């Protein structure tokens, strides 16, 4: 399998650490996720006001994608030539619970569109597409395990048949108990 850091540019976030192409570039352990991700956002000076409106899953995806795509990684490509193939296991469970809590009590019923919109995992893809003007093919898969081989192969085939020239690919999953992001580029 040629699917290694040497072949693909990739960014990984787990346990309070951020790795770019396998190299540790940021560390903020022993703090809750919300503080960690905000810390990374500030440290790397990402400057994107919409970031603060995003749910935790989208914040995780957004920071990962930003670090992966910095230095204009997509500059040679037209918006329609860039595809996104992403996956996770918990879909939008954290925000689902938040929305469910807002409708639990009929006397105190307050569903919010700003929360509800984040109950779809492909919203992460949408946020990344808006930020990077990506207009090509995209798909979001949900599976209990991260099947990197399948995602890479699917992206590779999309490129082989001419439907894309580059593909942003990978996994972004968030629950209260655990989180993991791994995005990479397939060309």
């Amino acid at each position, binding site marked *: 399998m040629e699917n290694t850091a040497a072949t693909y540019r990739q960014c990984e976030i787990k346990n309070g650490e951020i790795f770019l192409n396998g190299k540790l570039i940021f560390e903020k352990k022993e703090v809750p996720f919300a503080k960690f991700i905000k810390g990374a956002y500030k440290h790397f000076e990402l400057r994107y006001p919409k970031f603060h409106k995003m749910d935790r899953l989208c914040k995780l995806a957004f920071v990962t994608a930003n670090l992966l795509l910095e230095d204009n990684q997509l500059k040679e490509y037209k*918006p*329609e030539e860039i595809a*996104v193939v992403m996956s996770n*296991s*918990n*879909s939008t*469970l954290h925000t*689902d*619970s938040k*929305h*469910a809590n*807002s*409708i*639990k009590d*009929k006397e105190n*019923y307050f*569903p*919010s*569109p700003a929360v*509800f*919109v984040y*109950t*779809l*995992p*492909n*919203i992460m*893809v*949408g*946020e990344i*597409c*808006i930020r*990077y*003007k*990506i*207009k*090509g*093919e*995209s*798909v*979001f*898969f*949900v*599976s*209990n*395990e991260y*099947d990197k081989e399948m995602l890479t192969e*699917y992206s590779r*085939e*999309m490129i082989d*048949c*001419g*439907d894309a020239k580059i593909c942003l690919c990978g996994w972004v999953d968030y629950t209260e108990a655990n989180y993991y992001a791994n995005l990479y580029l397939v060309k």
Partner: protein
Amino acid sequence: MEFIVTAMEKAPVYIISDNIITSLGFGTQANIDKISDGQTGVQCHNDASIYPTPVWVSKITASNLSPAAAQLSSPEKYTKLEQIFLLSVAEALQQTSVDITSKDTLIIIASTKGNINLLGDPGNFSSDRVQLGTMAEQIQSYFKNPNKPLVVCNACISGVLALDVAKRLLRKNKYKNIIVTGGDLVTEFTVSGFQSFKAMSDAPCKPYDKNRSGINLGEGAGTMILSTEKPSSKNNIITIEGGASSNDANHISGPSRTGDGLFNAIRKALNDANCLSSEMDYLSMHGTATPYNDEMESKALGLADLLHVPMNSLKGYIGHTLGAAGIIESIVAVHSLKNNSLYSSLGFEEHGVTLPVNIITRNEKKQLQKCLKTASGFGGCNAAVVFAKQNIKSEQG
């Protein structure tokens, strides 16, 4: 390079079987009969388990589902949505000789929220059943399929996109048969969410109408069995000729104002199918009946030079069935091609979008060869698929 790509032979993808389960009935024919009669499954439900105040939705009643589910082995082991999936796949499978236990057969599931009704209150089921991957495993193991199912969870385009994913895998000869099934429920979770967006109509929805005021949610499942092997019948064989997806890169909860995103998906799907827009005989649109969506679609059709082509939305009959919508509506479109029948766009009275789209206002018999199915959803996503009828016997006989 560009030339080689377009000239490459694409393996045909045959649609060999299908099934629809909605409030209108169990089975494709039952649904098409009701649609053909102009009947709707959308009703006003005054049910606090769906929403504190009455809402117009299309729901499958327990009195309809229970007797059907009794055919399943150990139905009590499955959630309502899983039962609907199992019944839909089982019935579609019965019409074929496809071996679902073979390594050559894959199941693809399209769903936006799966068993979301179990969140926080799983009842007799384990709490991980709310995971789409775990729900998919239930379906896989019921049918003893050896391959890990793929779950496409891509908002309102999930169904159409799942067909496009299947097309890719079949063209690559990864599988001989793919069972694509889409399903979602009407739950308080989704109803309250769409209500918070003020996107729900307080009456039967009216796609493309001047007085449209939003969607009706619906529930159900649709299953299409796709194969690389040509069916034995000589006539009325329908194929997936092409498909594509796109992103607006504009807004996460509103469609593009120009329609350029959907237009991109349509253009790429036609290109993939090696078709011109002038070859389209019918358009099965998403038509949710929200002011913005329907307007956006008309702009996209204008850009694609498809304004003159007869089109409809089926949301007036079965509501918006979310992850199931793209598959259910594709099945109806496929049967439109087979039966040379165009069905009226229920709820439409007065033209209400900027561009002069050609909305079907009464059922009509017409020779149909090719059609386009589209969908658009939250996250700025769009998808389009082209279906065609392969007539072996020439029209002249």
